[in-house]
């Protein structure tokens, strides 16, 4: 029998991420696919690719934890845990001294605070709207005829920044047009958009002590976001090796930490 594998699968609203750990908790496989409309298929595809990389097969999986927006859709997962706990767990593994985690996902932004002992003491999620999320950036970029990558590239060129105040995606679009009319540079406007996200994060960060790390797909792909966060929060923001996979990594770690007796029964790993 091959050595057991532990799987974390993060079914997000935009992307589905998978991480496979071996019995020494070394990361041996990972993959990301677009979630699309079929979460079940996306999860299966991400798992198969990750297992291929890990040189394993499904029956080698000793325990699997699903997380993310579509966590309950993964019928073959042994348990599910929220992305909040998983991002915290993943980030803490990379940076044991981290105290604040900023996860900017497709449809929500979360700020998680850990105690000195690494215990989750507080977390906040954005209110119901796209403000301060990946969707906000993507749709505003789209209005400008740009991809998210191009928006990021532009913002990185910026020497100053335009101010975009609005929390609302629609109004932010109008503001962008106003800034263009005022003759502001496009790169500065792009940076203004990233800073508006950073301002939302600043509001959600109740206590500003200790090291901060950013996780999630937007952090992974947009250097401008890290720059904006660092400027607005006036502190360094760490970017882990696989920011987009932080949730899946945390889920895989939780899977590996679940003891054997619980592996057969638990649906919520947090039931322990």
């Amino acid at each position, binding site marked *: 029998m091959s050595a057991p594998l532990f799987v974390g699968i993060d079914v997000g609203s935009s992307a589905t991420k998978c991480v496979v750990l071996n019995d020494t908790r070394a990361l041996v496989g990972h993959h990301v696919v677009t979630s699309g409309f079929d979460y079940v298929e996306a999860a299966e595809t991400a798992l198969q690719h990750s297992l291929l990389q890990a040189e394993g097969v499904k029956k080698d999986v000793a325990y699997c934890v699903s997380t993310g*927006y579509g966590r309950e859709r993964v019928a073959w997962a042994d348990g599910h*845990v*929220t*992305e*909040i*706990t998983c991002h915290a767990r993943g980030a803490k593994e990379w940076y044991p001294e981290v105290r604040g985690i900023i996860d900017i996902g497709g449809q*929500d932004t979360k700020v998680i605070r850990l105690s000195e002992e690494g*215990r*989750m*003491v*507080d*977390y*906040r*999620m954005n*209110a*119901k709207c796209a403000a301060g999320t990946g969707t906000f950036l993507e749709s505003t970029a789209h209005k400008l005829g740009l991809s998210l990558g191009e928006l990021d590239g532009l913002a990185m060129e910026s020497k100053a920044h335009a101010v975009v105040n609005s929390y609302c995606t629609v109004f932010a679009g109008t503001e962008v047009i106003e800034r263009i009319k005022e003759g502001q540079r496009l790169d500065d406007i792009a940076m203004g958009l990233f800073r508006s996200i950073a301002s939302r994060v600043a509001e959600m960060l*109740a206590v500003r002590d200790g090291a901060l790390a950013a996780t999630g797909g937007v952090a992974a792909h947009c250097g401008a976001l890290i720059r904006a966060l660092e400027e607005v929060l006036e502190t360094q923001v760490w970017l882990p090796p696989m920011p987009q996979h932080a949730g899946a990594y945390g889920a895989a770690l939780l899977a590996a930490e679940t003891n054997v007796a619980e592996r057969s029964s638990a649906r*919520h790993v*947090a*039931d*322990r």
Partner: protein
Amino acid sequence: MSTAAGKRVKIKAQKRLGELMREHFVDLDAAAGDPSRKVAWCTSVGPCEILTAMGFEVYFPENHGALLGARRVSHELIPRAVGIGYGAESCSYMTSDIGSTLAGVSPLQEAFGIAGPPTPEVLVYNTNQCREVQDWWGFYGRRDGAPVMGICPPTHVGEVTAEHVSFVRGELERLVGSIEERFGTKLDLDRLREVVALSSQASALWRRVLDTARAHPAAMTFFDGVIHMAPVILMRGSHKAIEYYEALLAELNERVTEGVGAVPDERFRIYWEGMPIWPKVRELAEKFYDLRTVVAASTYCNSWAFEEFDGGDPLEWMARTSTEIFINRDEETKQKFLVEMLDGFGIDGAIFHNARTCPNNTNSRFGMAQRIREESKLPVLVIDGDLSDLRFFSTAQTMTNIEAFVEQLAEYRR
């Protein structure tokens, strides 16, 4: 652990509650069609005892608002009220109720086979809860040509002093005078004393019902509370409410003796601060069952647990109790109350509901959640939502928030 643990048990009294509600609304409907009877509308923590003592049948529109929310029709009706100038972010009880009137639909029609809310002859308010009620009543006052009367006590009160009570008592006397003048009747103080005694008795029983959730496991949940509180609002001042709560209390006390919990295999105990999310009450109750977590206590259900009446001046009792209610108090008093509740009910964490259209019954807007976290050293979560308007609510986001909160409680316990 008792043999009954692990099994979900229904509250038997619920059947009687259904009958009581039907009798209540059918009778109200009959009163509205009977020229010898008079219907008054009143706010839920308003001076209803005066109205009952003066021979009015009392209807509580906030209950209608809650019903519209629970039936998940508010979001279809609110636009009608917004269309005639009521703010989309104003009290969604008010906007959905006005919307339902404009649309000519009411859940009372289907539930009890009656025409709908009874037409008022007078509308009475107490702004101890909010100013919105005054303007809400104003809509119907204009529509029906009925007088709108009420009292405006001091708000955001710290310690309730003799001056406060005497001022509010004066307001109540003035209100009585206006009703007497308008309807040509006299208030009989002995009758008022009788009604107040009944009201206070129902309220005291209600408090004891809520207190059964102090037991471990809790005999009832907040989600049971929001259903079973109907008589203490709609029928207070009547023998019916007392009889109902005596039966309910006996049933719940039996649960306590036998160690039967409302949530099987209870793991965690949560406090709910703020309004219920009526359209999602059932879904949320299920979520907490799944998480083996009991919402053991709430500010909301406690709003009708008044101090007992000592048989003295009924107007003074009304003045005191209506001024003392939680919603009418300052931040410090509220914080003290909340910390005591967390302690008394053995709470593991508190959830604050930020009801977007009711700032009055929302206590997370001035740093209270953070202060409670610091003082009680317990995890505190703030969720966004609304009492009725689902446009302010995201199911996926809220459920994730709640699940993560329970994960956090588990982590605290480790």
